[in-house]
């Protein structure tokens, strides 16, 4: 392994292609942590955005008018405003209103750090799209299916949980896939509030080493790779969930 890393040092000495995150152990750690942070942020936001989508779609079909209106308002606001402004709003505006807690050294830190706010704001942003996606999937489930379930004495929650959602899930997977890819790409916004994810760490590295071109190309490839893995996994999942004869 060491000789592999040494090779990049030689590459730099001979050609000027500077990839410090491979030969320099300090930069390697930074880059690796940034990579892990991006994955962590993506997974957390992915998870909560899907939860928000499922609950939101359930609430959107609620018989109460005001519940539906609030969910619709939430969707429209989060879909039609820039995610970066949402992030700033959460981090600076709401974060400033929350009380502070003292850390172990006598200083005061906000209750929620940059990572938490980034996760919250990204979950809400992607969640708004997911609600719409799940709703469209539920509309694709034939009405006779729900009617049959009603006739068998299922409650509204049971119908949603056991019948509509599993069927809708298979219909919405391609759209969901698309949105989740978008979410992974949007995690770069966390850079703006100094969450040490991949873009942030790359920025640190290129500030230290003045190798913007190499870092940029590496970053693009890294995201290409990440998104590729996600798309591959989702496609596999889609295929394994497929019910013969249902959907197209």
């Amino acid at each position: 392994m060491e000789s592999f890393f040494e090779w990049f040092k030689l590459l730099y000495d001979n050609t000027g292609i500077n990839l410090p995150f491979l030969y320099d152990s300090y930069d390697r750690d930074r880059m690796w942590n940034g990579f892990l942070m991006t994955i962590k942020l993506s997974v957390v936001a992915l998870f909560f955005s899907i939860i928000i989508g499922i609950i939101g779609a359930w609430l959107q079909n609620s018989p109460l008018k005001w519940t539906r209106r609030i969910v619709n308002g939430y969707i429209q606001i989060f879909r039609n405003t820039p995610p970066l402004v949402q992030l700033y709003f959460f981090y600076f505006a709401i974060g400033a209103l929350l009380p502070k807690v003292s850390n172990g050294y006598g200083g005061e830190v906000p209750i929620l750090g940059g990572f938490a706010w980034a996760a919250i704001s990204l979950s809400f942003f992607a969640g708004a799209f997911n609600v719409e996606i799940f709703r469209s999937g539920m509309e694709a489930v034939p009405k006779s299916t729900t009617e049959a379930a009603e006739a068998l004495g299922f409650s509204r929650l049971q119908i949603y949980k056991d019948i509509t959602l599993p069927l809708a899930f298979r219909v919405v997977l391609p759209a969901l896939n698309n949105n989740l890819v978008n979410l992974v790409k949007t995690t770069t916004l966390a850079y703006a509030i100094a969450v040490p994810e991949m873009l942030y760490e790359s920025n640190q590295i290129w500030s230290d080493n003045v190798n913007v071109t190499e870092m940029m190309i590496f970053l693009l490839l890294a995201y290409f790779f990440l998104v590729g893995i996600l798309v591959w996994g989702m496609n596999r999942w889609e295929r394994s969930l497929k019910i013969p004869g249902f959907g197209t």
Partner: protein
Amino acid sequence: MNQSYYNGFNSRKRKQEYKTDLPVMITPEVKEPGSILSSLSAYIFKPWHGFVILFFCMVSSSIAFGVDDNAKSSIAEVLWRWMPLLLKGFIFNIVISICAMAIGTAAGAALGLGQISLNKWVRRVSWFITQFFRNSPWLVLLFFAMFLLPFEINIGGLAIPLPDWVKAIIGLSLPVMANVSEIVRGAVVSLPSGQWEAAESLAYTRRQTLWLIILPQCVKRMLPPWMNLYAILTMATVLASIVGVSEVMTLTGQALAAEGGRTDLLAPFYSFVLLIFFMYCYPIARWTVRLEKKFSVIG
């Protein structure tokens, strides 16, 4: 007991009358070909749409106002004072979005046509470019354009300066290009192959088929996703603030700094930025939905 029984009966009966599913009983809803206003009403602002944001803005600002008791000037006053500057910044955002959309659409249309080319290599290269730019984050592409483009271009002794907002336009037009390319390809593929065959049987050349038969039909299908993309792009123009273009987000930060970093101003200012973006993007979104419904094939 009796009373409630009758009430329940009555309401159920009323419901049944209302929700009958006998086809003969359904009165067709006749849309009156009314004025422009009534046709606009599908995507015009309902009061409660903006109300939610406004409510949020007011609540957060009043809470913050209560916290800070030696406030200098009221929040509304400060916001009013800075509003012209912020709106100017927002117009700059719109200019960036329109330029990036124009460049992206032109390049994307070419790339999309490349994706359906008969030449295998043109097809593969266009496919790769499309996928590459579609799957990379917008912010990274923006950084890419910002740092890797020179600050001026020399063409035969003539120096053309490239200010940072021009670079931002180029950086944003890259993902737009890739997305437009996919939209074009999707629209062409979605047309029934009978169109191609019919044109071929009428001895149209490939170019004639594409320009006279296929693409005119595609425009309709491409319009809603294209508008959607425009809304996304407009929201992405804020990213330019991270790389230092003085658009609305940068100006907001500067205005907040100029007011001495008062924490009670943070919420109102950021909600104001949210509100102007909402007011610009929401009608576009509604219009898109309407067009989608209008162009969708019935049955």
